[in-house]
């Protein structure tokens, strides 16, 4: 494993190439433009296809085409661009096509700004497009983790024939950190006997999500629901807890990382503070969070949004445990000290 200093966007791009991604389609949008720049140079070197499309709508449909043809494919974008992709994501799910998608979230709604945000949690984990589905969503909190997540995502998306979203944010996309790049060739595209490669020596393959007969569509949906249950195997989280926590802090991505500083400081002062970081946002680490929260007097959630993951946490944490929230949005990143003060005041007020 080579250890190099890389920007988040570039590390994710390089990890995809090392995972055997052989097609990348993109459209410029800040704060993830370095990813498309990197791919425009590296993809042809690696013998793959790079194409800058006319819109994110076209991008996601190109992803769909490449996935239908059976190759490992990825795209990346940022919030407004990912909104435009929702139609195509629903089609990927309906047709059971594997693809890796990256959202380097920025402030919204609307054009918003280009600063870090976590306000696309609902869009990513609750469906986003039309129809009954949820998207496999992983949230990294370091450049190294983002790279390995992208790498692993190619195996996961093929395993379930269901798209995988890497939900990063503007901060993770832009920071530079030492990263251990995964090895080229260790992850191999699976054999896809369903892919469109020309009907030679086999019956013709069809990729579709169209079932005019309601019974047929219900059956297809039941099949998808059954498949989604198995995705529980991909649940990932990180926790640093004890049996007698005064407070359990729950956060993901960049905010989890900032909160770690605040938690360390409080622990230095003798406070019993635990931290729980969901890594897979869907499927959400429900039972792990539930049992962790039962060891705490109160739970504190912080996000760069006005409370999206909060709804899942409130749903999971037993009613008798109070869940407090602190969110910043619009591209504002909370500082370690700001979160420290917030936590400290919660601790001093008691339960």
């Amino acid at each position: 494993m080579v250890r190099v200093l890389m920007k988040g966007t570039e590390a994710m791009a390089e990890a995809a190439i090392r995972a055997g991604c052989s097609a990348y389609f993109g459209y410029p949008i800040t704060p993830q433009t370095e990813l498309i720049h990197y791919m425009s140079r590296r993809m042809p070197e690696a013998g793959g296809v790079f194409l800058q499309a006319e819109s994110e709508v076209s991008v996601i449909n190109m992803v769909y085409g490449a996935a239908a043809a059976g190759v490992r494919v990825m795209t990346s974008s940022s919030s407004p661009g990912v909104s435009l992709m929702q139609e195509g994501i629903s089609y990927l799910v309906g047709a059971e096509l594997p693809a890796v998608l990256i959202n380097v979230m920025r402030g919204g709604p609307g054009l918003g700004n280009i600063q870090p945000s976590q306000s696309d949690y609902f869009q990513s984990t609750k469906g986003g497009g039309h129809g009954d589905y949820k998207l496999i969503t992983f949230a990294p909190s370091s450049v190294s983790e983002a790279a390995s997540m992208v790498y692993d995502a190619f195996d996961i998306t093929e395993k379930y024939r269901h798209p995988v979203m890497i939900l990063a944010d503007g901060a993770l996309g832009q920071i530079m950190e030492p990263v251990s790049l995964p090895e080229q060739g260790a992850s191999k595209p699976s054999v896809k006997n369903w892919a469109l490669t020309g009907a030679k020596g086999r019956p013709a393959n069809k990729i579709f999500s169209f079932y005019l007969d309601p019974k047929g569509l219900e059956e297809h949906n039941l099949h998808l629901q059954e498949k989604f249950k198995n995705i529980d195997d991909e649940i990932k989280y990180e926790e640093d807890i004890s049996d007698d926590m005064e407070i359990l802090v729950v956060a993901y991505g960049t905010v989890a990382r900032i909160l770690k500083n605040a938690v360390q400081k409080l622990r230095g002062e003798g406070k019993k503070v635990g931290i729980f970081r969901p890594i897979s946002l869907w499927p959400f680490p429900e039972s792990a969070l539930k049992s962790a929260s039962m060891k705490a007097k109160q739970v504190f959630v912080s996000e760069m949004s006005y409370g999206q993951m909060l709804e899942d946490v409130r749903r999971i944490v037993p009613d008798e445990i109070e869940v407090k929230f602190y969110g910043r949005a619009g591209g504002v990143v909370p500082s370690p000290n700001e979160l420290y003060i917030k936590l400290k005041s919660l601790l001093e007020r008691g339960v």
Partner: protein
Amino acid sequence: MSNQILERPKSLTQKQFHYCPGCHHGIIHRLIAETIDEFDLREKTIIVQPVGCAVYIYEYFDTDVSEAAHGRAPAVATAIKRVSKGKFVLTYQGDGDLAAIGTAEIVHAAARGENICVFFVNNAIYGMTGGQMAPTTLPGMKTATTPLGRDVKKQGYPIKVSEMLAPFEGVSYIERVMVSSPKHVIKAKSAVRKAFKYQLQEKGFSLVEFLSACPTGWGMPPVDAAKWVEENMTKQFPLGVYKEVGLDD
């Protein structure tokens, strides 16, 4: 004693078409299937199907087929062609699909000179959803959403797709045909064949526009509808070759 003089193209399945009497989709399907057979391409062909009446293409063609969201077939086909070496890729799209919701996709696929064939069926109406105005609806034509006839002052003018796309450098071949009589079917077949050759010779984007009847959507008996194509549609959409960069021998 009898000799079989005609058979179903091998590239079609045995499934019976669901199209209304007098609809031209069936003829156009057959022309494409025959040409796939002629060039021995069945095992290399990947079709990208539209949304609209021809959404069932995947049941009719015995080739690999991918569905595409409404209007997005050129983007899907772009990717399939680019990642699949040596495969033959075509889209089959209607006028609502290609000339309304999918305008960006078709324009940019043409501008990039994607080496795909597009078979564009223009029947001046949204057939599957119940006969609403399409971008190609003729001025004055009555539809479910222009009950008094298309008023160009309010609903604008029809889009002429062949004329619009022909100037792009990436486009190798565009011809507008119709299939309303045996004579025209033969002409249309030769246009299909030519479009195939342009892709096989890697000349870039090719498109055949078929003026097509929709007796149900137009509220006409099949014979009148075919006549209406010849007498009215060809005035708005003149037949002919709009682009032809030339094939190798």
